[in-house]
């Protein structure tokens, strides 16, 4: 309203300029919100096709994941591991490397933490046990990314395939570890030893929200600042934008490649550790939340910006927690979240295309 008033006062050229600026702003908003709305609509059609009222479903998800106090606390807790994964993916994607092995790295980190924390906590102070299990979980996840990193850095083997293969291997290997090596002899359920609730990461204030959330926020903001404000981050972005230019510019590309894989996998492994020492307490056999893949669209939606990613991770958590409730109550399997997330990815890619076209037309 204000802007309109100014326009009429200062005359035609400025008015035209203000109008284009407003158009541009509107366009930016449309290009961000549009894909989400379109995806909800398309996914709604899928729900209609299987005989579920999409409005009931969405309302239920929002109610359970966002509006109910308990649900909101669960949502915030769920954000902790997802933030770590998102930060790991941001490092990799900004450096032009496709770490699609998140699921394996996450699970191995989780299993490592679950194997160590309950044992260490009996012989040393709690905080030290948690810290050590956190560090070792990170190291295990990094170790799992070494082969793809070396292959990419020195042999030029496409990391998309190698990380995917290592992910399948990692998921199976984590299961082997849970069932054969770290099995809790105390129960008949195949799972690791359980970290007592009192020894887990403290909860925030009087809520059930884990303090892992704070660590996750620190991780993603740190990653964002490193990638945008430091020379190391700049070097990584150069490698991502144009590897040939990076070589000619004298950058140690193989070394940077190894660093990217280590940081990315390490952060994702930390996510697994945080989930165990903060929330789950143990790893059950055949447990695989497959967060690694679900977070990918979030990172793209945020255009690899750490602050924006926090917001979209929150949305994914709402969907995830609400979707779990809906699976129990409305009988819509959790897999629906997967469908919705993938539709978001496609509509987002189309929006980017339209944006590109829009900018070209404006320049012309």
């Amino acid at each position: 309203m204000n802007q309109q008033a100014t326009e009429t006062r200062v005359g035609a050229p400025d008015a035209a300029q203000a109008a284009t600026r407003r158009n541009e702003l509107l366009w930016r908003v449309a290009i961000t919100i549009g894909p989400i709305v379109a995806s909800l609509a398309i996914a709604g059609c899928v729900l209609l096709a299987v005989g579920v009222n999409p409005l009931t479903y969405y309302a239920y998800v929002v109610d359970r994941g966002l509006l109910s106090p308990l649900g909101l606390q669960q949502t915030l807790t769920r954000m902790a591991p997802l933030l770590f994964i998102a930060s790991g993916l941001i490092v990799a994607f900004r450096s032009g490397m496709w770490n699609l092995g998140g699921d394996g790295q996450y699970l191995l980190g989780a299993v490592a933490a679950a194997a160590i924390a309950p044992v260490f906590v009996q012989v040393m102070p709690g905080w030290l046990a948690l810290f050590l299990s956190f560090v070792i979980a990170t190291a295990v996840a990094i170790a799992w990314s070494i082969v793809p990193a070396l292959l990419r850095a020195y042999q030029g083997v496409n990391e998309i395939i190698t990380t995917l293969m290592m992910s399948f291997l990692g998921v199976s290997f984590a299961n082997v570890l849970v069932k054969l090596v770290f099995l809790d002899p105390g129960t008949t359920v195949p799972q690791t030893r359980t970290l007592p609730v009192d020894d887990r990461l403290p909860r925030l204030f009087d809520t059930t929200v884990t303090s892992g959330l704070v660590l996750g926020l620190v991780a993603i903001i740190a990653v964002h600042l490193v990638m945008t404000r430091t020379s190391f981050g700049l070097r990584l972005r150069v490698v991502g934008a144009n590897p040939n230019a990076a070589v000619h510019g004298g950058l140690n590309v193989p070394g940077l490649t190894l660093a990217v894989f280590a940081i990315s996998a390490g952060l994702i492994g930390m996510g697994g550790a945080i989930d165990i020492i903060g929330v789950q307490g143990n790893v059950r056999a055949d447990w695989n939340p497959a967060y690694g893949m679900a977070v990918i669209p979030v990172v793209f939606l945020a255009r690899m910006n750490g602050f924006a990613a926090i917001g979209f991770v929150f949305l994914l958590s709402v969907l995830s927690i609400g979707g779990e409730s809906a699976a129990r109550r409305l009988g819509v399997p959790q897999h629906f979240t997967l469908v919705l997330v993938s539709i978001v990815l496609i509509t987002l890619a189309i929006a980017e295309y339209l944006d590109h076209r829009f900018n070209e037309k404006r320049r012309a």
Partner: protein
Amino acid sequence: MGGLFSETFVTVLLFGAVTAAVPLLLAGLGEQMSEKAGVLNIGIEGMMIFGAYVGFVGAYYSGSFWAGFAAGAAGGMAVAALMALLCVRLGLNQIVVGIAITLGMEGLTALLHHFQFARSYPRLPAAQVTPIPLLSDIPVIGPALFRQHLIVYLAVAMVFVTTWIYRRTQLGLNLQAAGDKPAALDVAGIDVTRTRTVAVLFTGAMAGLGGAFLANIGAGLFIPFITNGAGFLGIVLAMLARGRPLWVLFGALIFGLCLSLTTAAQVAGLNIPTDIIQMLPFLAVMLMLVLFGRRASLPAALGIPYERGAR
């Protein structure tokens, strides 16, 4: 029930290897054509699982395996058409769209299966085999290799069909050019978009057929996430085969052998945890990539959308 080297064990192992290899072979041959034409098709896993579901539903309700295979191939092709529209025509990022298609189809088929069959997993009757006269009477390998469903022989025949396409036809040359130097193909007056679209649709049909085989013949039923990385193994096969269909066949048989160790070991009475056995094909892949990865040559324009006049 015999030892590790009994006749039954070897027959079961080989038969299982062929059954497990066929989906990988089909996926690998399909992916090979996409990659040749310059499209890295990460969505093949999604095309495969959609083909598996549609193929299973087709066979289950029609009672005909052939209707199932046709449905599977058509289903895979439909998903491929979406990919071709987004990646070839609009030039969107092939990796992003590929991930989306794989995730989406995994979720969608699990969802559809849930609402169609609830928690039941109906089985198809055993498929009829077509023994090849004389060859099928050879002891041990006869029953394993030459007493298969007709589609198995057709899948192997596709190796030679694609070899012929690449070596002897104009289409083969066009595909190669679309992957190596699309601008040159364009100058020669041939539509790059159309050539690549043909390749992606072929990939979809083959992947869908492979998925349908996996569900209908391999397992006899559909369970969510049944492909479990088979499409990705197809991508690896295509990468390592360096454009040669025959190498895809050899690779598929090696991976198939790894996969069939599970059933064969159970027949031999060995009690190896399934999780360890499930790791075998992926271990084999990583080993092969470590050994031969450097030589896996890929087309120059792989993964780069073609835009006329762009520098």
